[in-house]
């Protein structure tokens, strides 16, 4: 029998995905397409927030949406019906997150030459999507009031990779023991650079601030 040979690798498992993600970001930069990765728990109001936001920005910039879920296409259909923008569904085949390769495959199904902004609605989950760089230009997460102001302490990685945190469902704040200032402090403990915007997707409060943030980001991406 052949002798066993030991090969030292000493390499992070995420290195390949990180390199692939960086390559994808460069390709998007070249095409002038901004990719926003949206993450949150299931039920935090991602799709409702998106519908409101897209309807505010779709006249200013050309938007497309990729919905990632383990199964079903209810979200993609809802986005298309409620906003009229191009919307496709990606199935992760049981996996709890998207990586750069899956994101690239999804982008291949969109008409990128006619798009300024692609919003990727990642799988509802506060753990795994934070580990895998999708190749996006920014990470946005939604934390909804019923989840509690202590979530940044419990899911530190998710909050540390986010450029923007939306605190959603502010209309029900009086019914929950949710302290907005404490929540902001908890987020900044993990990530001093994160922007925090309180919103309510149901009433529309704060959505205009988020919409302007996106428009500014897309403009800066195209200029740089």
């Amino acid at each position: 029998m052949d002798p066993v040979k030991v090969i030292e690798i000493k390499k992070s498992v995420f290195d390949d995905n990180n390199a692939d993600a960086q390559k994808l970001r460069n390709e998007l930069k070249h095409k002038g397409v901004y990719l926003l990765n949206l993450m949150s728990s299931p039920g935090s109001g991602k799709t409702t927030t998106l519908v409101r936001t897209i309807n505010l920005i779709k006249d200013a910039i050309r938007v497309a949406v990729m919905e990632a879920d383990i199964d079903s296409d209810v979200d993609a259909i809802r986005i298309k019906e409620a906003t009229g923008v191009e919307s496709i569904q990606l199935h992760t085949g049981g996996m709890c997150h998207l990586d750069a390769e899956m994101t690239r495959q999804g982008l291949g199904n969109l008409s990128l030459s006619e798009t300024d902004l692609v919003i990727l609605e990642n799988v509802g989950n506060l753990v795994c999507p934070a580990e895998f760089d999708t190749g996006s230009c920014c990470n946005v997460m939604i934390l909804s009031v019923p989840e509690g102001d202590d979530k940044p302490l419990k899911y530190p990685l998710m909050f540390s990779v986010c450029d923007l945190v939306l605190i959603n469902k502010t209309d029900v704040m009086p019914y929950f023991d949710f302290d907005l200032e404490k929540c902001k402090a908890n987020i900044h403990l993990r990530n001093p650079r994160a922007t925090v915007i309180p919103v309510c997707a149901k009433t529309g409060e704060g959505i205009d601030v988020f919409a302007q943030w996106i428009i500014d980001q897309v403009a800066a991406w195209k200029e740089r």
Partner: protein
Amino acid sequence: MHELGIVFHIIKQVRQVAEQNGATHVSKVVMNIGEVSTVVPYYLEDCWKWAVEKEDMMKGCELEILTIDALTHCDSCNCSYPTVANGKICPRCGSDRTWLERGNEVEIKEIEVI
């Protein structure tokens, strides 16, 4: 589920290295897993057993997991302390100007090939 995605990435990278080295079979993979890497070794092993059977050159491949203790460094009093027991706040001086020194690793250390 998270671990399954990681296992697929490990297998992909191990297969590449094995092929570059002209190996026909991978008999063992040694991983460095940090204490606060969010990877659960038990789940990783479970996903591993299932996934390696689908790879011709990795059937029956053993997975060895080495745990790396997590250490956090405090910039205020310039000390290092165990992360899991103390978290983000320095137990010596109470500062939050701290950063993770090690313990976040999900790293392929080495492989044994034939």
